[in-house]
């Protein structure tokens, strides 16, 4: 795609002023790139030298020593598409500028074919500036901070926070995104050891007996459930715990060995 384009629009390099090297991946898109070319060469945005700008722009698009990342980005159709649309707009403007008879508006004034591009560039430049100003504002959590610990007073009872499942899931999404999904991965492959679970079961039985339901209720997910049951069976086999069911279909009670003696 790119070589073809280079053939169609040779970047008449000898006419160009020497420009500091730039790479496409430094820019947010074609408007950003054009603004860079215009501002860095102090061109008049209301009287853009379209021919010169077009050749510079095209030269950058087909720049052979773009870094690998940009080459790759260049192959991304979405991104390349935006730059190519602008290239064709510039070519079209260039040719319209060459027309001997300019188009006229309703009142008979000559229409500058570049007006629309200039308006677009000015609008974009404004938002680019506003974005910078927004970024420069003191931001909560970056530059300024609100109080974090609860300012409890001795004789005030603080209502406990309310549960909100959506907020909880959103919070976990944040963590997932921050660590690049690693958590999900770890959760899936995490193997729970029966030995560890045996220790936990014993520890929880330390205070006395416990219903099987209760023990299992706190096991998150199928894997944990299975591991916990295996751990209980293993402990029973080792006679480290006793399992008591006083009636058919009745509740199952787990008892630590010590209690039996």
């Amino acid at each position, binding site marked *: 795609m790119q070589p073809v384009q280079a053939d169609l629009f040779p970047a008449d390099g000898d006419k160009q002023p020497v420009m500091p090297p730039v790479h496409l991946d430094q820019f*947010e*898109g*074609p*408007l*950003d790139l054009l603004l860079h070319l215009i501002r860095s060469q102090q061109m008049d945005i*209301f*009287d853009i030298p379209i021919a010169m700008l077009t050749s510079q722009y095209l030269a950058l698009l087909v720049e052979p020593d773009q870094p690998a990342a940009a080459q790759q980005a260049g192959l991304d159709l*979405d*991104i390349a*598409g*935006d730059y190519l649309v*602008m290239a064709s707009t510039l070519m079209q403007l260039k040719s319209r500028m060459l027309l001997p008879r300019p188009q006229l508006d309703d009142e008979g*004034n000559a229409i*500058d074919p570049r*007006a629309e591009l*200039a*308006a*677009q560039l*000015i*609008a*974009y430049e*404004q*938002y*680019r500036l*506003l*974005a*910078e*100003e*927004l*970024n420069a*504002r*003191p*931001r*909560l*959590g*970056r*530059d*300024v*901070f*609100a*109080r974090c610990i609860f*300012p409890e007073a001795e004789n005030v009872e603080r209502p406990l926070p309310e549960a909100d499942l959506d907020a909880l899931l*959103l919070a976990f*999404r*944040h963590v997932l995104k921050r660590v690049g999904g690693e958590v999900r991965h770890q959760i899936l492959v995490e193997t729970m050891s029966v030995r560890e679970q045996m220790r936990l079961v014993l520890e929880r039985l330390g205070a006395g007996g416990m219903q099987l339901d209760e023990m299992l209720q706190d096991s998150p997910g199928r894997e944990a459930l299975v591991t916990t049951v295996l751990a209980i069976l293993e402990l029973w086999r080792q006679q480290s715990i006793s399992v008591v069911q006083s009636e058919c279909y009745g509740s199952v009670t787990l008892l630590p060995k010590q209690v039996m003696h």
Partner: protein
Amino acid sequence: MLRLCYAIAETGYALIVDDDALTSRIEALVLASDEPLTIKRLVAVLGDDIASGDIRAALLELETHYSTRGIRLVQVADGWQFRTADEHAASVQQLWQIRPSRLSRSALETLAIIAYRQPTTRAEIEALRGVKTSGSIIATLQEREWIKVLGRKDVPGRPHLYGTGRQFLVDFNLNSLNDLPESSQLLDDDEKEQMISNHRGEEQ
């Protein structure tokens, strides 16, 4: 300013703030609130017999008191909140052991366009920036609750209309959208048109 303070202190009236029970109560309430405390909520807590004008005056008194301290009383999202002074950003970052997270330029530009042009659609954002807006940028901004869907535009495809949410004001230290920097200098399309044709006029 400082000289004035000394003068007040010398004449013994510095403690007037401390004597004022209402101001003191409001100071405590602002600290206790989890989020910026609005005058409306203050009225609800303090009772009807306290005029909202007095509450406002007390808040301004506190704002002045804190204006030279390490913590400030600031008005954000139509409420009041204590925040650390921004000159202490580096120290607090160190306390929290965080590095300030940076927003990409694309995210900032998208946010700026939504903030200034709301309600606006993705298509409008793309037209202004001249590039496609990735779904993940919109998602990131939504997740931070800086932007939200306000509704749908009544055009074919019924695209989402985006605007900023309350959290945007809270996080960017803004009391209202009117406090956005230089919003008055934004040109609308007519004005831009005008600028360009004026310019052409000059040349002719």
